[in-house]
């Protein structure tokens, strides 16, 4: 199997975020692999170990994303494609998916894996648009993948603790949910081996071509705190509290 895993480098979760000009102050950031993408990579490596073939990672971004690409190679990906652009954030999900589809098309993949969404922009669109552009069937929020007799059986996460089991043909695209398997560490030998693995660089010359898409501003969630006192006897107050927790806060 040829398995393509699309990975994105995002600001690390503990980064200090300061909104600045349509994005956040980059000088404050450290970066890491997008969490669901790390699980997509894990699944891609696991399937390769089970069924043979090749795992190829694809990532778009400036020079710094090579660090994330190297991490994937060190964990066991065979080679990588780097879509080079200073600021892929300027692209709409459709444009990003177009660039990715162009880069992938020649690879004739049996399976394309992405994380279900990115931790920074969180569109959750790029994977499914990519499937459409590649002409592949897709399934989203995948919790389990089984390849059997040249076809896929996947488990999808639905709302409220429900799951859906789907059988689908190959080739296909799946967007992977975090937690699908235990993440492996990059071994020291793997890190050393990764030094000689191929990273194909594909410069993205095109500027933004989707005039309908523009990020106006980003802001931190406003913090609000409201205090409510319940009147009545302890029993009545408790009943009111349970009601609020159930239907307003929805934590019960």
């Amino acid at each position, binding site marked *: 199997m040829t398995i393509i895993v699309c990975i994105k480098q995002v600001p*690390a979760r503990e980064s200090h975020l300061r909104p600045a000009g349509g994005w956040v102050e980059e000088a404050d950031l450290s970066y890491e692999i997008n969490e669901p993408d790390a699980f997509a990579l894990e699944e891609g490596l696991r399937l390769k170990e089970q069924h043979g073939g090749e795992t190829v990672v694809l990532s778009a971004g400036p020079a710094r994303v090579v*660090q994330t690409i190297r*991490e994937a190679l060190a964990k066991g990906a065979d080679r990588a494609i780097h879509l080079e652009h200073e600021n892929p954030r300027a692209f709409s999900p459709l444009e990003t998916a177009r660039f990715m589809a162009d880069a992938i098309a020649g690879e004739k993949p049996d399976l394309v894996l992405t994380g279900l969404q990115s931790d920074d922009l969180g569109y959750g669109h790029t994977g499914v648009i990519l499937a459409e552009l590649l002409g592949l069937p897709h399934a989203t929020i995948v919790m389990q993948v089984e390849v059997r007799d040249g076809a896929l059986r996947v488990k999808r996460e639905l709302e409220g603790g429900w799951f859906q089991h789907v059988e689908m043909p190959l080739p296909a695209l799946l967007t992977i949910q975090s937690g699908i398997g235990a993440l492996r560490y*990059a*071994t*020291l030998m793997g*890190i*050393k081996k990764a030094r000689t693995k191929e990273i194909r660089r594909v410069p993205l010359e095109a500027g933004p071509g989707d005039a309908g898409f523009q990020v106006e501003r980003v802001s931190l969630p406003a913090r609000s705190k409201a205090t409510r006192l319940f009147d009545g006897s302890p029993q009545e107050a408790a009943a009111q509290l349970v009601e609020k927790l159930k239907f307003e806060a929805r934590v019960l």
Partner: protein
Amino acid sequence: MPPFRGVDFLSVDSQFSEDELLVRQTARQFVDERVIPLMRDSFREGRFPSELIGEMARLGFLGANLEGYGCAGMSSVEYGLIMQELERGDSGIRSFVSVQGALVMYPILTFGSEEQKQRWLPSLQSGKAVGCFGLTEPGFGSNPAGMRTTAKPDGGGWILNGEKSWITNGTMADVAVVWARTPEGIQGFLVEKGTPGYTSSDIHGKWSMRASVTSSLAFADCRIPEASALPGAKGLRAALMCLTQARYGIGWGVLGAAMDCFETARQYSLVRKQFDDRPIASHQLVQEKLAWMITEISKGQLLALHVGRLKDRGRADHAHVSMLKRNNVAMALECARLSRDLLGANGITDEYPVMRHLCNLETVKTYEGTDHIHALVIGERVTGVAAYR
């Protein structure tokens, strides 16, 4: 507990290569996920968590900076970063890896015959075998040249007699690198577990390094074959070369312990409130302690990195390593004491890692060349006069 995000006041990270950062990330995640959750109970029970050996071996931590025989061939800086993260977990875990790599695999690789290398290095690298290093004796610590253990040539073999003490991994070890006096001078030998006349027992009652095995080795007319001598390990200099490797790793390792203490105290000071419902981080005396710690840790990082770069260029000598070990251990110990102070009464419990690091670092100050001896090594370098001879 959130994952550890590093202590990096001076942007020292900007001096590391992509590969060095990746190596640190592997060690860091391993320590967060596998080591730290075990340490409180391991330390309490006085147990070395041997269940970690297999995974540390698979990741390549054992003999990480050595070349060949399955070893990962990491640079000195990459090796140092692994030690830093391991000791952030616990000095006992770092000690295990130090001894296995720097004091057992290194001498076998450097001084051993091809047969000895083939026999031991792959199994030591993969954690299937454990090693220990027997130099110190009950009466000879800082002055190993006075050792009493003897190896007498006897019809194509050797007969060992004597006792070694304070030996990390001693009773766990499948093979011991033992230093003994022969008619021609001091010589290193490989002694296998189970050789008649070779026994070992653990030292109990430790308040420090409780998650590490510390033992005594005894040799009573222990007969070993001629081929057990390490051909190149002649003279005390060979033993000291091994110690320079291990001390280098300690200089990095204790940075990890210091970072854990600093970060614990910093976070604690932000949530602990005292006087007018203000966090103690807002008090000047608390900030002074945190400022001292982060300054000294930052200087220690730069010292370790510089000696590491020198070592990778073949330009580090043992006096540089003495400065690294002595400075960083003393700094880490002081960070542990200050952090304990900032945590108040909570600091003495094992709910926090600070007292565990503090107790461990008292050992680290003494072993692998005491603070005093390293001062004299540096003193000899700048005066040309050896005070300990």
